[in-house]
């Protein structure tokens, strides 16, 4: 079942001589519970693509349909709420709210939606994330891996249709990276969530069902589990 449909997406920055085409007519689709990785060199346009899909940025042209809803036809306020409810973000530098505990950070999207979190679900998630013992700790009291697991919890708590991860292991050691990747795979397969992850680490594409490559703003679909091809 198709969840995400990216159609002829382009993004251009600047005008005249400083005009940069960050993304050129990118089109692809993703189905539900699919785990895709985006690879590419620095400045190739992968983050631009992720930002557009996450409705953090607006495209110059093209469309993005998430669960058949066109993201950029909605007004800003509606788009924010849509993003809050349907898209989970995981950033390289974690981006946790420093004033909130682990548990509060995880339930943050629900609180923004004025929803009462289900304690059982929160406990289960904390358990899965291995953060039960750390639930009352502030981000400053956590290791990098724990912070990123908290960020994953925040992305999972409201069961979004799509999880966007921008180099989630970029700031982590290999052990923590492995834990994070397992959690993301778990999310895709166990919770049936669609995951789109940017990574520089080609080794991590092994966790993905499918690999996309962005090069000079052009998107190429490399298909599923193409470790060999990529290397």
């Amino acid at each position, binding site marked *: 079942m198709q969840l995400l449909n990216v159609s002829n997406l382009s993004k251009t920055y600047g005008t005249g001589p400083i005009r940069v085409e960050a993304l050129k007519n990118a089109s692809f689709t993703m189905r539900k519970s699919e785990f895709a990785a985006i690879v590419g060199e620095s400045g190739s346009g992968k983050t631009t693509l992720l930002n557009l899909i996450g409705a*953090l940025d607006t495209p110059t042209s093209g469309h993005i349909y998430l669960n058949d809803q066109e993201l950029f036809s909605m007004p800003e306020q509606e788009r924010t709420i849509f993003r*809050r409810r349907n898209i989970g973000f995981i950033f390289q530098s974690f981006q946790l*709210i420093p004033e909130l505990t682990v548990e509060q950070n995880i339930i943050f*999207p629900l*609180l923004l939606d004025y929803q009462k979190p289900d304690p059982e679900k929160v406990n289960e998630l904390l358990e899965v994330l291995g953060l039960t013992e750390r639930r009352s700790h502030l981000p400053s009291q956590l290791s990098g891996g724990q912070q990123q697991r908290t960020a994953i919890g925040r992305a999972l708590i409201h069961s979004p249709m799509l999880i966007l991860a921008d180099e989630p292991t970029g700031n982590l050691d290999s052990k923590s990276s492995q834990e994070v990747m397992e959690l993301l795979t778990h999310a895709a397969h166990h919770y049936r969530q669609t995951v789109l992850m940017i990574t520089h680490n080609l080794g991590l594409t092994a966790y993905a069902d499918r690999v996309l490559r962005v090069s000079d703003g052009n998107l190429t679909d490399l298909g599923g589990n193409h470790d060999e091809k990529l290397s």
Partner: protein
Amino acid sequence: MKSYLSLIPAYGRVHKKQNRMTLLCIVLAVFLVTAIFGMADMEIRSQKLQTVKRYGNWHIQIHNLSEADAAILAERPDVSASSWYNVINYRLKENYSIGGKRAAVCGIEASMLSIMKYELTEGTFPETDRQVILTNSSKAVLGVQLGDSITLSTPDGNSLELTVSGFGMDNEIAAKSDAIIAFLPLAGFQSLYRQVYQTAEDADMVYYIQFSDHCNIRRAIQDIREQFDLTEEQLGQNTALLGLMGFSDDSFITGLYLVAGILFLLVLTAGILMVTSSMNSSIAQRTQFFGLLRCLGASPKQIRRFVCLEALNWCKTAIPLGVLLAVVTIWGLCGALRYLSSMYFSEMPVLGISLPGILAGISVGLITVLLAARSPAKRAARVSPVTAVNGSAGVIQEIRKAANTSAFHIETALGVQHALHRKKNFLLMTCSFALSIVLFLSFYATTAFMHHAITPLRPYTPDVSIVSADSSCSLDAELMTKLAACPGVKRIYGRAFAYDVPAKIGDEERPVMLFSYDLQQLNWAEEADYLLEGDLSKMTQEGNYALAVHDAEKQSLAVGEVVHTDLGDLTIAGILSHCPIDGVQDTERLICSENTFRRLTGELGYTVLDMQLTRNTTDEDVNRIRALAGDGVLFSDQRLSNQDNRGAFWAFSLFLYGFLTVIVLITCFHIVNSISMSASARMRQYGPMRAVGMSCGQFTKMLAAESGTYACCGCILGCALGLPLHYLLYHYLVTARWGTPYELPFQALGLIVLVVLAASAAAVLRPGRQIRKLDITEVIHSQ
């Protein structure tokens, strides 16, 4: 680039917008200090000139001093001028007259003219005993010229032929009383005294002393007091002048010094807090930049130097701007004051430059900025190089307690947490909010002082008055009726007087000045809130009730106390703060109803008939009133002085309320700026929140919660500090002088709290707009 410090102007050029707010804060702090101090300086200079013009440029007067002691005093190096002086018939109650006009006779030495700043417009100082100086207006009144003879009639029935040797400036008291002032040389004065009072003794003269410019007058007075063993009664001081020069030991003036000192400190603190919080926010916004500098090899000391020099770089523009703005404002205010009241502010320089004000502004600007830069400089120097690498803006490490999301919505909890989590910042912000309230309330106390000190608008102030020539109750009701019917007379009201009525107050015997109030005057006392205590309704009831008048220098009568007078017993029904009659030493002023006065004295007429005129009354109308009153009365036309007083009141109001407005505007600006800078400093934190789904509305609510926390805490602290301070200032400025009891300034408090809350609410609008435009992706990926 010659050194790393060359980065400062380059950075400033690129981040003009970011620096603008800090620059504006310094400009405002310098403006506030320069304008307030400069205006106070101008006011003091003007008042000093006015006081010298009115009371003379003498500092002390000594009674009963021997010739020998006077000679020793005159030789003192700190005495610049001295002279003997006395006056006969100062109160114009004795029968001295020149050309049919009442006259006062002064005995002076030539040096007294310079001490009194009395200029001769024509002629010279008398060279013989029989020469005299008259005021300029005498020329028209008496029709005399230089060298003419005039006849001074004395109470003993004799007369004295005098030759006019000069004319001097007109005297305000003489003009108001329609009298002639004659200045005789000392020998002529003593001769006149001996002749009139048939004594071989000379009149007791008073020795006036003017000290040199740069001496410590207070110490000199103390020294003279000790050297000549002078009593309190012997030594008089020109309190007004000494007060303005800062040398008075009068308790009221000392109180005013204290008030000025407190206001000075408040303005200074406001300036420092404003600049400090602005610079703190500016540094907080640039943590990563300083981290980068550290990363590239800058030492903490270099960072400190960078921040301090950057602050001084701002001063280069901000201080001249602030000073210029203040100077122009002062010129405008001085011009307005002179225009509104030429009598009170005629001496005020229009384009005057106040060096103390400018110096205060510059030093406050520099010191404040350097002091304010210390803390942010240290903070900047502490920024770890890692900050530049990983982008964690140094905030995470400082948080120790999580936000309370169970009690509030998430955005409110985060807003409150943002306000509270950095104690130093919270304290700084709360204090600066509170200081706005404290500053406003403190300056507001001076408006109460103004309402008491400059009172042209008292309900009973007449435009013209008719006074019985012999101070008896000779003005009858028929005259009152006729006057009431005259064109231009809006209102007429009379008072009957019984002077020096022997009375026993408590165990003490002292005379009473009893005068009557009609119903209108009693109503005014009630409407104008002059009743300090007691019950005015008793005044219209049967029985001998009277109102006493508060006098700071005497022990007040108590409500219910009975005063036994020769006319009958009077029960005190209330105490008034104001009445139209000035206090007389050792005499109690008592006010009774017309009925009580008539019953006690048997007098049916009035001593004074006061009239208030309609706006379009002409001079012809006033002349008609004067003609109707006849020759046997004293006529006083106060329209001009009323107009000037009214002008003075409005001018002073303009000055004080102008400053209150400036304080309110600066408060608004400061609050808006602080919140805006605080939001800008957190902008990097807001990016992820927006990414995760915080809407613009929620973001605005979060900011409102943060701003509201500062505002509420600031209001509480402001009230807690401002109200006691307002009480203290009110006590020194008003209660100590006029006895008016303290009342909580609900209106002013309500207004400033409302301003603080409204400004705090408005302050979130700009950051709200900023967050709408926020490029979330840029913020997130720059970290």
